[in-house]
């Protein structure tokens, strides 16, 4: 529990003071008051780190994402997979006329339309997958210039993240396009 709560701190702070803080908590005892105190100070350290970054010369990344881009790409893929499969089967069944698939897809589509949350998850998942895939690629740098502070968004390229990000973007665009087209047809009809 003690080791877990020190993980609330930024990595650099934790590497320097984490063991000492854990020992002190072991000596004083872990109470709700101690937990709140540590959580409050961890939040203060994060704020302080972000402020230092914004003051100039620093760069900000989402630490776990930056260190494990392939893991985040895998998570994005898992989030995207059901929607990707549904879109692929829908295209095969309704656009390319694979009759054997229509019988399979019709009940699924009807069920999804009756359970709104599934519909919502299906539409939202490409956006969520895009964010998860892209997070390890982004780094915000703030530089001090004579004209003022300048924020630069750096992008690194990791093949798996880029491919899944683009796939999520494509599927999201197809879904939104489909929803808009249906809305227009309904209004028109």
């Amino acid at each position: 529990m003690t080791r877990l709560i020190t993980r609330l701190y930024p990595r650099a702070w934790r590497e320097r003071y984490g063991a000492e803080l854990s020992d002190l908590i072991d000596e004083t005892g872990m109470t709700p008051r101690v937990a709140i105190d540590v959580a409050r100070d961890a939040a203060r350290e994060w704020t302080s780190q972000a402020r230092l970054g914004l003051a100039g010369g620093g760069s900000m990344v989402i630490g776990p994402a930056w260190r494990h881009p392939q893991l985040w790409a895998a998570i994005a893929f898992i989030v995207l997979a059901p929607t990707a499969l549904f879109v692929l089967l829908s295209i095969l069944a309704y656009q390319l006329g694979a009759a054997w698939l229509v019988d399979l897809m019709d009940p699924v589509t009807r069920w999804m339309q009756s359970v709104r949350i599934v519909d919502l998850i299906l539409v939202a998942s490409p956006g969520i997958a895009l964010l998860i895939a892209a997070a390890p690629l982004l780094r915000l740098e703030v530089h001090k210039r004579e004209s003022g502070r300048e924020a630069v968004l750096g992008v690194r390229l990791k093949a798996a993240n880029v491919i899944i990000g683009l796939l999520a973007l494509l599927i999201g665009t197809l879904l939104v396009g489909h929803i808009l087209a249906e809305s227009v047809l309904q209004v028109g009809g």
Partner: protein
Amino acid sequence: MSDFQPTTDPGLLLMISLAAGPKHGHAMLLDVERFAGVRLGPGTLYGALSRLEASGQVEPLPAEGRRRPYRLTGAGKAALEQRLGNLQRAVATGIARVSA
């Protein structure tokens, strides 16, 4: 123990504690509670300690087992004297005004 607490600024309390000699985290916590009546939380203590170290006012000593003592630096001692001087002037002014 009196309800009056001379200050609750954890950085100042730690510097006063370290002015008596090097101490590790738990010893500082007990010392501050003894002389100021303030029970610092572990997060508050290490938060203040890390800021004091970053500003060069305290420095770590080699670890003794699992514990690492800290001591006041020369710059820290000068800063503490200045802060206590300011506090002393504020207290003297306050006492003079309420006594007038």
